[in-house]
């Protein structure tokens, strides 16, 4: 085991774990985003709640869920280990004058800060939906006539309720902006760390990464913004939605 532990505790080995876990989490983001798009279906949450019930009870999904826990765990743990090593390497005496903005991007230098904002969001997010649905059991049932769905948790209403709280919407949007910047650097960085750098396809990876960062963060951010601005307390399109849309459009 010695060569294995030496490989994955070396500076490059830790980076490789960072990269693999990060790219794995990117695939999770895609699945999560596509599933959540059902919030926009305007069916009183029927599709979203059925999907949530499936994700929460299917044995295969529940098994893969542990992979997700490990993905986050490794990514956060290695981030802490690498940050500690890198801070020690930089030393206690900093530069009096350092113009790193002239040689690199802000987002590349601040992945730790961006990641910490995302982690704070993740804790709040997991508590509010995952913990309540899985462990606290205080989410009301859907009810209604359909015997198949009436005992499903009404997570849709939990989402609608949360997305009418202004500070919650603010936290979500701030976290998605951080996620966007995190992915802006992280996507292409993951490939570079795995040694996948070549003049033929590296430019494509870079621009796919930029598009991925914008689409994923904008996609997630659109959900709290939509429910906060355009829907009533039941998640139905609010009476004044078109007036709000006009004033938002006018603001730009």
């Amino acid at each position: 085991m010695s060569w294995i532990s030496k490989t994955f505790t070396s500076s490059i080995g830790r980076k490789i774990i960072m990269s693999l876990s990060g790219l794995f989490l990117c695939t999770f983001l895609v699945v999560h985003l596509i599933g959540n798009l059902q919030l926009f279906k305007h069916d009183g949450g029927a599709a979203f709640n059925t999907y949530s019930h499936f994700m929460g009870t299917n044995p295969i999904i529940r098994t893969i869920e542990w992979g997700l826990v490990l993905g986050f765990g490794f990514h956060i743990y290695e981030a802490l280990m690498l940050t500690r090593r890198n801070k020690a390497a930089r030393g206690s005496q900093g530069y009096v004058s350092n113009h790193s903005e002239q040689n690199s991007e802000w987002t590349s230098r601040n992945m730790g800060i961006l990641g910490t904002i995302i982690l704070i969001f993740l804790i709040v997010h997991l508590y509010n939906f995952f913990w309540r649905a899985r462990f606290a059991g205080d989410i009301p049932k859907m009810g209604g006539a359909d015997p198949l769905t009436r005992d499903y948790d009404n997570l849709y209403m939990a989402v609608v309720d949360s997305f009418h709280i202004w500070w919650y919407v603010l936290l979500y949007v701030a976290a998605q902006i951080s996620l966007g910047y995190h992915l802006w650097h992280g996507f292409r960085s993951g490939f570079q760390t795995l040694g996948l750098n070549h003049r033929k396809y590296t430019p494509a990876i870079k621009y796919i990464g930029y598009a991925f960062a914008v689409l994923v963060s904008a996609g997630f951010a659109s959900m709290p913004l939509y429910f906060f601005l355009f829907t009533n307390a039941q998640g139905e399109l609010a009476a004044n939605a078109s007036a709000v849309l006009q004033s938002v459009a006018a603001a730009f």
Partner: protein
Amino acid sequence: MAGSNPNAKPMNLTLKVWRQPNRQAQGKIVDYQVKDISPDMSFLEMLDVLNEDLLRGGQDPVAFDHDCREGICGSCDLFINGRSHGPEKGTTTCQLHMRKFSDGDTITIEPWRASSFPVNKDLSVDRSAFDRIIQAGGYVSVNTGGAPDGNEIPIPKEISDRAFEAATCIGCGACVAACKNASAMLFVSAKVSQLALLPQGQVERKTRVENMVAQMDKEGFGACTNIGSCAAECPVGISLENIAILNREFLAAKASSNNLA
């Protein structure tokens, strides 16, 4: 001055220089004025003028590293106005000329900063950590005997060009100085990819990358986070592609070398 531009106006500058008597002592920034600096001077010649002024005044001159002053030895190592080797792209400190500055400018001059690069005195830095990384594997073992003929081993032009590109690394340490993580990976990757590309480097290919990365970690350098400051500040333009090659070489060596320890 021979060859100088007669129309160039001499400059007066304020220098903020890091002064530190020895390794253990606490250093600080000290302000100096230099007068009548020719724009044709190199940055190091400007510091020579400062030191002559200091010596005439009975003060301790500023220690700084330099050797060839031709941009090829990698000895000079100044962090000027917050940048490795100063504001100009693709130059060492000795090839930075005072015409890049303006009369009345304030210039901050600091040594490379990194835990693995302790300050000897003032602006002079101990970069022997780089030597120990090279000793760990940055070489090709050669059999004794007669000198081999030139071009005895055929190497495709494309490969030799890429190896030469990596071989231009002069080991100055600007990459470490500029990196937020004080990572030496651009330096190590240049050496590893240079030798991994050439047939002479194949024999020790796997042990080389394993040993050099182990020594790099032991010296306390940080881990690359692909920021790119190193390549942007490199005076000879070593690219980030080399770090990807290093990562590949390391992973391949770990997966296939016979070293179980």
